[in-house]
């Protein structure tokens, strides 16, 4: 038997077998050197999950319902509410999908352009399967039958003040346009807990690396709120609309409003069911 390196032995200790198995069984399009064309790499995923798992399991004590609604294969879009000053909601949702899908699926979070200009962050994100939010990237991934994670509120969602928590910003229409065009379902998702993880004090219009602003928040690390994730019934617009309807602005507005209403209903249910912010 080949001798394990120190790093492999460390990894074996800190990444439980269940997580290891999920990553091992994960299907992705290896471009030849263990990376896919977008930079996703399983070895990076192993280490990242090993390091970030305590956040998911212990710090945020994440619980989720309805992950079985995510189709086991084929393209789909997870449309979630966005909040929390820093995008921990995206990270926790990403980990939750991998943990609770059988066979395991990797969700490809779609992020704003400026992220590609951030040193270290851009590399880390790319190794984890995150992609820049250009139309071409999204189209390519949907054609490949990948699962996408989008926040249709965009930056206004994560930027909203604490006093307006769980009040959704208007959903943009890009995700429903893609869903109709490529005949993939939209799965509404509600993430509860992220809204209370930080108390935002101010925004500084400090456009370093193309970021829209620099948030000032308290405390310096996220509070140990309890994350609840609710996956809703998939909305299959392709049964109601034809591909060319993806060019109709009114239909897109209607569909986006429908997704927003579904997310809002899931949030209302979650707020009703949860036992306090930290419970």
């Amino acid at each position, binding site marked *: 038997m080949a001798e394990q390196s120190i790093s492999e032995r460390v990894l074996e200790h800190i990444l439980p077998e269940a997580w290891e198995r999920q990553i091992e069984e994960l299907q992705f399009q290896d471009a030849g050197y263990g990376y896919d064309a*977008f930079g996703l790499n399983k070895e990076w995923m192993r280490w990242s999950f090993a390091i970030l798992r305590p956040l998911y399991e212990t710090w945020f004590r994440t619980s989720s319902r309805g992950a079985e609604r995510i189709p086991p294969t084929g393209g789909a879009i997870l449309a979630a509410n966005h909040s929390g000053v820093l995008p921990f909601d995206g990270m926790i949702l990403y980990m939750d999908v991998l943990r609770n899908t059988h066979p395991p699926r990797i969700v490809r979070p779609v992020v704003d352009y400026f992220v590609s200009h951030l040193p270290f962050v851009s590399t880390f994100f*790319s190794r984890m399967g995150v992609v820049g939010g250009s139309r071409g990237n999204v189209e390519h991934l949907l054609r490949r039958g990948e699962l996408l994670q989008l926040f249709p509120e965009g930056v206004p969602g994560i930027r909203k003040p604490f006093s307006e928590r769980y009040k959704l910003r208007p959903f943009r229409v890009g995700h429903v346009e893609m869903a109709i065009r490529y005949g993939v379902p939209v799965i509404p998702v509600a993430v509860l807990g992220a809204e209370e993880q930080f108390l935002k004090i101010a925004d500084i219009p400090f456009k370093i690396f193309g970021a829209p602003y620099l948030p000032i928040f308290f405390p310096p690390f996220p509070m140990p709120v309890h994350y609840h994730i609710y996956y809703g019934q998939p909305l299959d617009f392709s049964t109601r609309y034809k591909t060319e309807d993806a060019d109709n602005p009114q239909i897109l507005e209607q569909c986006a409003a429908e997704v927003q209403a579904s997310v809002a209903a899931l949030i209302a249910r979650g707020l009703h069911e949860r036992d306090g912010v930290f419970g």
Partner: protein
Amino acid sequence: MHSKHDISVQSNTITHQIHEASDPSDAKEDRHAKDPSASIRRYPHSSAGTSRIPRGVLVTGATTPAGIELIRSFLLEPHVERIIAVGAEKQAPMLEPWLGERLRYLCLDLTRERSLRQLLFGEVAQGGVDTVIHTASHRWARHRGSKIHSLNVDATRQLLQICEQQPSIERFIYRGFGEVYDISAEYPLLIEEDHALHLSPHTPQWVRDRVEADMMVCMRMGMSRLQVVVLRCAECVAPDTGSQLYDYLSSRVCFQPLGFDPMLNLLSLPDLTRALFLAAHVQEQGIFNIPGKDTLPLSAVIERSQRLHLYAPGPLVSWLYQARSWTRRNKDFRYDLNRERFHLSAILDGSRASLILGYQPQHPILWSDLFP
């Protein structure tokens, strides 16, 4: 260097010159020269495109590694009756074993219109050449000026115009470059043929010339009686191909911008040759991206080349390579040409080439042979 002579015809009677191999790939070429049948790859051609059979081929840039390989491939095709190889060098020792009635080597200054006319309406017309594969371009990024522009752009324009006038020519294939595409976070990572081009006024001449030549050839599609094809190839990492990355990796120490590790797609010489060969065997015209088999991060490229890998902040990397270009004149790597792709991933999408030309990358780069 271009010869002052317009045309000087080489024949198989020229004494074979032993070429001193400076690197392993050159050594390989020499082995090939000694045993002509040993090294030639035969490419099957099958695609969704309508097939055609070239009867005669004109290849410019014939003394480049890709040109030599391409000519060798055509020599294996019995239906190709005539191959005219054009290069800037007076002699082409790598082609000498095959020179004769079927293969002719001409030393030609492509920037001289009169020479081109003589060639196209002389040798080419008499030989019944129906396919022109234009692979010649200036290889050194540090060179600039009107002479370089003349070879890269004006020669291409003139060659295309004269080909349109010469009735035996049916197909014009231009070896383009993936470097013509603009790389930006706002654009898709997977680059299709309709991707934005690098047209900033600050674009260095090395890129600007390539964009101009590419656009000029593309402009003739549908307007010309010729079937015009542009192959936008990923970077071919090989010596004497003008590869920036090859020059970058030829240093023992490679500096990489701190915090960035973009995905690259790289093309091997056999795949580049294969793409050019396949483009000659279909009737369809258009623009085709030619990706390579190797898709990997920059750090993995450096690791596979067995180079010492150091990270430094981007501005410092820029300064270090600028300083290197001042002190070591034989080095051609320019960080300003590569800044975007050393920060942002960019991969050519070869779906169109796969569908129409039947091209799929097959040959990975042999890193240990390239950088022993």
